[in-house]
């Protein structure tokens, strides 16, 4: 039997749009719209602050102090996320216990509530005259208008991202791999260190990045509890503020150009950091690019 002559390759025209250029165009249009939304305000910011203003902001000692404080405090917040957030995420992913739903809701709470509210709550707790104020003064961790206050607010609003990301990542680890590891002689702690944690690391790092991003962008709570930061603990410089509060103060004072310049400078720094991490992941030097992540 000889094949019948074929005029055109057999196609299913009514299905072609699902794989063809139209589908690609749809994706590009939607993604492009979103990216435009991100980019336009930033472009506006940079237009308002010419390069020479950004440069002079970078050379300004006051600005440098605010950036240093912001990085220091957010760094401590990320440390807190590592020490306290990851274990909680593991607990939520691996254990069933009474009241788990309550704990999960508590973790989500800081993400939901307006952060001014968080600041107010802490404010009533730590203002001079309260027992907590006296206690924190005595043990050498004064909170009101110090870096510890900044860290506290930052941790409150940002650590949940690490908890949630770790919970999801730990939950995604195949339970059978963990059981095999235990049967091979590893106790619970060894399984955590050798198996769960390395496999979940990539997701956890993503959570830590979000935590850091959320921490440095915090302003609401800080305006209430630490709009001015006096030297204490790891911060020993002059009285300053976090970048966010500082920009807000510039804006309130009518220094629009300065506000735009400092904003632009900080945006550049943050962008460079994120880009660095992404390029690092792509080049494969980061430790969390384990075997399971190979394409």
């Amino acid at each position, binding site marked *: 039997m000889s094949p019948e002559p074929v005029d055109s390759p057999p196609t299913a025209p009514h299905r072609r749009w699902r794989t063809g250029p139209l589908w690609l165009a749809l994706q590009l249009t939607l993604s492009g719209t979103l990216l435009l939304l991100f980019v336009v305000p930033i472009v506006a910011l940079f237009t308002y602050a010419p390069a020479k203003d950004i440069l002079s902001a970078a050379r300004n000692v006051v600005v440098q102090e605010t950036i240093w404080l912001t990085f220091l405090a957010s760094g401590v917040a990320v440390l807190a996320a590592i020490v306290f957030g990851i274990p909680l995420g593991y607990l939520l992913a691996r254990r069933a216990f009474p009241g788990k739903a309550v704990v999960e809701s508590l973790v989500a709470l800081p993400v939901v509530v307006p952060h001014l509210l968080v600041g107010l709550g802490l404010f009533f707790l730590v203002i001079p005259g309260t027992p907590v104020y006296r206690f924190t003064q005595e043990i050498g961790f004064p909170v009101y208008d110090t870096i510890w206050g900044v860290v506290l607010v930052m941790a409150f609003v940002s650590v949940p991202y690490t908890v949630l990301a770790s919970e999801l990542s730990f939950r995604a680890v*195949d339970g*059978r*791999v*963990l*059981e*095999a*590891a*235990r*049967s*091979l*002689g*590893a*106790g619970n702690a*060894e399984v955590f260190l*050798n*198996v769960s944690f*390395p*496999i979940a690391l990539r997701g956890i790092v993503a959570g830590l990045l979000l935590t850091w991003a959320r921490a440095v962008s915090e302003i609401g709570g800080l305006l209430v509890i630490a709009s001015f930061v006096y030297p204490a603990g790891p911060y020993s410089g002059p009285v300053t503020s976090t970048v966010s509060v500082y920009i807000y103060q510039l804006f309130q004072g009518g220094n629009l150009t300065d506000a735009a310049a400092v904003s632009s400078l900080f945006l550049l720094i943050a962008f460079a950091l994120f880009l660095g991490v992404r390029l690092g992941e792509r080049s494969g030097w980061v430790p969390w690019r*384990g*075997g*399971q992540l*190979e394409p």
Partner: protein
Amino acid sequence: MSHQWTVEGLETQLDRFHLGPVDLRLAPGNAIAVLGMSGAGKTTLLRTLAGFLKLKRGRILRDGVDISRWLPEERDLGYVPQGLGLMPHRTVLRNVRFPLEIRGRADTNRRTQELLDQFRLGELADRYPSRLSGGEQQRVAIARALAADPGLIVWDEPWQGLDVLARYELGLVLHELRETQRIPMVIVTHDPSLAFSIADSFLVLSAGRVREQCDALALLRSPVDAFVARFLGFENVFERPALESGPPGSFRTWLLEHSGPEGVAFPSPTLLSGPGTLPAWEGKVRSARPSPHGLVIEAVADNLVVTLRLPPPVSPPLPALGTGLRFGLDPSTVHPLGTRFGWEGGC
């Protein structure tokens, strides 16, 4: 290290699923194949043996010592879960090393190398599990399980997802482990030929209860239910509801008379060319296909599809569809299903 294992009246509860009671006895060199449909409790049994599920009743003894309350890491089992449980973030080498590292063994490097050589994994040592074929992954899993010198190998569907050659190879490996190292094994499998090549006894689970427990010969002699009959390769398995819901006829009536509470199973009937002494019926050819085991003919009699197998070689022409044929059944080869539960009256 090989041990004497005894499981007495093991019962487990997992949510609403109840398993047991199960009794097992394993001497060095023994292998038990656990059979049963999905949800029968096979994996639950293995996870209970491995220490991941609490015993509700009963106990597990190793050389007479009750280890029922021991932690999974204390039991020295080579437990290989379904899907093998290889660590995706560790290379082949580091997977095999794992049990030795955990124990801080002085001979970690030497022993790892031995195992890599024994299972032909040397060249794959630096690969991640995701980059291995199914058979290679299986070899890593068994090498890793053996690294810790297990006293019992507990393997959930070792042959799952393997091609014919890899199955054959793995069968040889397990066989050798049993023969030379005398490590007892409990293996869940759906593969009859491999089960028979490894196991000297069988445990059939159904809805969490032991349906049958016996040696290979006894299992072959009389299938306890439709699942076992199909597992054993009976060509014809009819469950009771199917027999009861159809047009009446002499063949259907005869089968019902020979059925147990759950139905009936029988091997290929004999194709008759002339009169004989066997009970015989007429059927019509529905399909005829050649197979490695001979010519397989499906014939319809009383609306029931009967499968006949004529031993090879298969030579043309194949019977035409719709032609009539006559087949006879030796009553001694016909097994009623569901006539017993447990192994009291069985094998």
